Every structure is written in structure tokens, then in C-alpha cells.
């Protein structure tokens, strides 16, 4: 199924997770086996669960879905000795605007992800996994169903995997269009056949997740990073990045760049180098105006804030987030009112309606931004937008309310002059 790559790779990449991308038939088991496939699983089978988790901790891998929580720590929260069945749920609901990497990991190297899931299974004593894929990725659900069927037929899923005596079943589960279901507890409700509404935490999914059983939830890319970590050692993976920010990640660069694409770069990679060298700079020699560093939920950075290494801690220090790896580049011509409005239309559409500050907040922010964009802006609107957004922060069950508020706060704070200009025109 995989045909050609969607974008040319860059010579500046550090290819660990994507090293098989571009190989002919890279999604087929024999190609995977001929290129280090399942070495890590066999090695992990010789390790104790504690050793596996320690190796993941040593890698300094942090969740690639967006929150950046240390993966090894998350794994250690699942009570291995619980008498209940333990489940592994793979979040392939990739929906954060700007993010398009999990598609590639499943399309070009599905076995790498499967091997990572199996290693997690060994560590948790889990024998069942559910791959929750967004409904829009139907071609990938069909693709994964074929890959899973091949894996069963060849003894890499099901009973006695690769002769180790370890059993594991993996199933695909289709979503049907809901950004909210990327949030892990809403995803679990969706998996259980309900509307995707976030749950109160605690209990956390590690203790009571799918069907009230202990559940490990990780992103596609997080699982895909596990085989290289176990195969070459956690320390080797960690060394690719910066302290507490191990390894590489697939950065999705989009917007105003000459060579948009998904590129694998080490954590701590300079943001300006990613924009100007990896992605070929801004078309027409235009100036950089702003960057969305990791998906639309992240506070925007002004051009003069972008001379930084891209790691979780640096981004947090300057009040933003590394997020899901969706970096959107905005040139000097971008109308920030329209940009803020488009973001808010998205969140208002996707708010599940469970929490009033999010449901009402996104709706009113959208109304005010729409009025502003249509020429009806008022002098106190910038302050109103900021105040409304700040009242949403931290007042909802899940992070969608914050995700809508944070970029808005950053835009009205950092680009107030764009609003002023539109106000002048309107008057």
C-alpha cells in the first residue's frame, strides 16, 4: 500500500523511528525482520518487567501525543500484579491541528509500533491492545487490519508470539470524527461505545481505564520509539536529545515554508534551523511573524522568541509547549485576527459541551472574533478576549478548554497591534 513518501526527506534528519521510511514494502513483515525487526521484543522477553521499565525511564522518552509526560513513569503506574486484565490502548486519533506524523508511522512502519506495543505488554503483563484510529484515517484502519492479519498468520500476534510463549491480541477500533476523543479519558469512553466525554481524574487510566481495568495509553509515536530504545539501550536514545528530553521526534512542519514536511529531528534541535534549513525557509524571502510550536493548542511564539532549542523544558520556560510536534510557521503577511478566529472556530466546533467554561467560552470567543473580523471590533475587545480566555483556564475536566484559551491569550497579548490595525480600518 505505501507508495512514495509525501515529502522529500532532509539530509539534516536523525533517522531512528523513520529509518525504514522509503524502503520498498517497508510495511511488510519480511522487510521489517530484515531490518532489525523484533530484535527488541526478543531482547525484552529476556528482561524482567522492571528492567524494561527502567530502560524506558533511562531513555528519557516523553509522551509524543502532546502532554510530554515521562513514558517510563507512566508505565510504572500500571499495577502489573492486578488480578484484573490489563489493557493497552494506542492513541491514533491524531487530530491536533498541525500534526500528521502518526499517519506515516502506521503507513510505513506499522510493525515498529506493534513491536513497541508487545514490549509494553511484556512489561505490564497485558495481553490485549486496542488501536483507536480516527475515522477519517479509514485507509489506515484497512491497512492496519491487513498488517494485523499478516502478523497473526506469521505468529507475531496471537498465541505464543515468535515462540516466546507470550500471547497478545491487537484490534483496530474506528473513531467517527471527534477531536475530543484524542484526550485519553474521552477516548476510553468512546472505546466503550459512548459519547467521548472526559472523565474525572483520579482514578487515572493506569488504575481504572478501559472497562474499569488498568490501562496503559500512549501515542503511536511513543510506542514506535520503544523498539529502538530496548534494542540499542535507553541511554543511547537519551543521548540523542537533551537532558530529560530523550531521543528524536517527528516534527511536522507546515504553513509558510518552502519545504513543508515531516522530519525526524533530535529533541533540542534549534527552531530557527528547523524553519530555515530543514524546511527551506519562508517563501518569497518574507519575514517570520510567529510560530505555533506544537499544534494549535500551544501558545504562539513571536519571531523574536524563536531562537531556542526545541525541547519540552525550554518551551515550558517561555510559556508555551512542545505539544504534539505540529509546528506551524506564519510569515509577516498573516492576519492574526483571522488566525485566532480559525483556531476558535475549531475549538468551538470540537468542544464536547460537558464543561460550561469550555462550551460557553469557546462559543463566545468565536462570536467576538467573528464580529471583530467582520469589521465590528470594539476598543475593549482585546481585553475582553483575554479576560474570557483566562477565566477558562484550569476550570474544565480536560485540557480542551485550556487548549482553546492558551493560543488566544498569546495572540491578544503578543499581537495586539494586529487587532488595533483592524479596529482602525473598521472605524
Amino acid at each position, binding site marked *: 500500500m505505501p507508495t512514495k513518501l509525501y515529502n522529500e526527506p532532509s539530509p539534516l534528519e536523525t533517522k531512528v523511528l523513520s529509518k525504514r521510511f522509503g524502503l520498498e514494502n517497508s510495511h511488510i513483515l519480511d522487510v521489517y525482520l530484515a531490518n532489525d525487526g523484533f530484535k527488541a521484543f526478543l531482547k525484552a522477553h529476556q528482561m524482567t518487567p522492571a528492567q524494561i521499565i527502567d530502560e524506558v525511564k533511562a531513555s528519557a522518552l516523553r509522551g509524543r501525543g502532546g502532554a510530554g509526560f515521562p513514558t517510563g513513569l507512566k508505565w510504572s503506574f500500571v499495577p502489573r500484579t492486578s488480578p484484573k486484565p490489563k489493557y493497552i490502548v494506542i492513541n491514533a486519533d491524531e487530530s491536533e491541528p498541525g500534526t500528521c506524523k*502518526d499517519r506515516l508511522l502506521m503507513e510505513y512502519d506499522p510493525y515498529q509500533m506493534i513491536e513497541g506495543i508487545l514490549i509494553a505488554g511484556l512489561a505490564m503483563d497485558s495481553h490485549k491492545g486496542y488501536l483507536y484510529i480516527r*475515522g*477519517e484515517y479509514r485507509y489506515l484502519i484497512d491497512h492496519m487490519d491487513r498488517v494485523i492479519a499478516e502478523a497473526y498468520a506469521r505468529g507475531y500476534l496471537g498465541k505464543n508470539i515468535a515462540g516466546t510463549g507470550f500471547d497478545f491480541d491487537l484490534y483496530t*477500533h474506528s473513531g467517527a470524527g471527534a477531536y475530543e476523543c484524542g484526550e485519553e479519558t474521552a477516548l476510553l469512553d468512546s472505546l466503550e461505545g459512548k459519547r467521548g466525554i472526559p472523565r474525572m481524574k483520579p482514578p487515572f487510566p493506569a488504575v481504572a481505564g478501559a472497562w474499569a481495568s488498568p490501562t496503559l495509553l500512549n501515542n503511536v509515536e511513543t510506542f514506535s520509539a520503544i523498539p529502538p530504545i530496548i534494542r540499542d539501550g535507553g541511554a543511547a536514545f537519551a543521548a540523542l536529545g537533551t537532558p530529560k528530553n530523550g531521543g528524536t521526534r517527528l516534527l511536522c*512542519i507546515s504553513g*509558510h515554508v518552502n519545504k513543508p514536511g515531516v522530519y525526524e529531528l533530535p529533541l533540542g534541535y534549534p527552531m530557527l534551523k528547523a524553519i530555515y534549513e530543514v524546511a527551506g525557509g519562508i517563501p518569497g524571502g518574507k519575514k517570520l511573524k510567529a510560530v505555533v510550536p506544537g499544534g494549535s493548542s500551544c501558545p504562539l511564539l513571536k519571531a523574536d522568541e524563536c531562537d531556542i532549542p526545541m525541547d519540552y523544558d525550554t518551551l515550558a520556560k517561555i510559556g508555551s509547549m512542545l505539544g504534539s510536534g505540529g509546528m506551524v510557521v*506564519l510569515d509577516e503577511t498573516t492576519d492574526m485576527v483571522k488566525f485566532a478566529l480559525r483556531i476558535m472556530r475549531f475549538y468551538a466546533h470540537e468542544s464536547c459541551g460537558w464543561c460550561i467554561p469550555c462550551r460557553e467560552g469557546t462559543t463566545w470567543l468565536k462570536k467576538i472574533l467573528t464580529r471583530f473580523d467582520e469589521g465590528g471590533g470594539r476598543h475593549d475587545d482585546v481585553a475582553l478576549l483575554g479576560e474570557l480566555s483566562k477565566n477558562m483556564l484550569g476550570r474544565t475536566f480536560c485540557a480542551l478548554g485550556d487548549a482553546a484559551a492558551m493560543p488566544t491569550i498569546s495572540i491578544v497579548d503578543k499581537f495586539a497591534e494586529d487587532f488595533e490595525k483592524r479596529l482602525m480600518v473598521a472605524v
Partner: protein
Amino acid sequence: MTFSAQLEERFAKILASYPEGRRRSAVVPLLIYAQDETGAVTPELIAEVAKRCEVAPLQVDEVVGYYSMLHRKPQGKYHVQVCTNISCMLVGGTELYEHAMKKLGIGHKQVTSDGQFSLEEVECMGACSWAPAVEINYDFHHYVTPEKLDQLIDAVRKHS
């Protein structure tokens, strides 16, 4: 209700994939796969899915309104979805959507009078680095220009 043998096979597999007593989990997958054959989520389909998943019809009905890909009225044979979210918007997604409206003569969530096409302005579909993106039914198209969209629509029109 009866479905194609292929779909029945898929349903059997799906219903067997969840733990004992958790057939409700199959509600969303059954609805979305069935909808492709029935054209829409009809009251009959809701009743059928409820029966197969061993839940009340209301428990199926309430999820239909939640998920944007589930719809109670038939869409066009070819459902054209144009993304205008931020990555697409920055490189012509909005103009592409306006072009699609003109080309098809319909607006958001409308269907052409011959039932061939429907149009939807959609949220991020995960093609940001190859924008602007369009999905026609389940086929992704990247780097779409107005000219390329015309070609795609004309090719489909000739085909049908």
C-alpha cells in the same frame, strides 16, 4: 437488516474483539462501517446496531449526534471534504473551499440535486505538511490547487 457478506464478516470480528459483556464498545465502529452501505444512519440502523450491541436504541441514538462523521441524512455519492484549519488556511485552504462551493454549486453539508456530490468544510484531517488537503470519501489528496480539485471532480463525474 441485512448487510453485505463482507460487512457481516467485519461485524463479527469487531463484536468478538471486546471483553465479555462489553458489546456496547462496538456501537461506533458498527455505525460508521454500516453507514457506508446504508448511506445514512437511519432509525432502522440504530435499532439494528442496538440489537447487535445489546443496548437500548437510545444509547445508540445519543452517540450519533456526537460524532461528526455520522449523519442521519444521505450525503452525495462523493463526499468532498475540504480542510480549512490553520495549516491548510495558510496555504490556500479557504480559497480552495470557496472554489469548491462554486464548482459544485452547493455549500457546507449540502448535496447536489443529482445526489452525486456533497461538500463539507472540515477540521484538521492530518495532512498539514502536505496542505491544502482534500478528502473525497476516504481518499486523501494533498497539495490541492483549484485546478487539481476541478480535475478530481471532473474525473469522478465522468466515472459515474
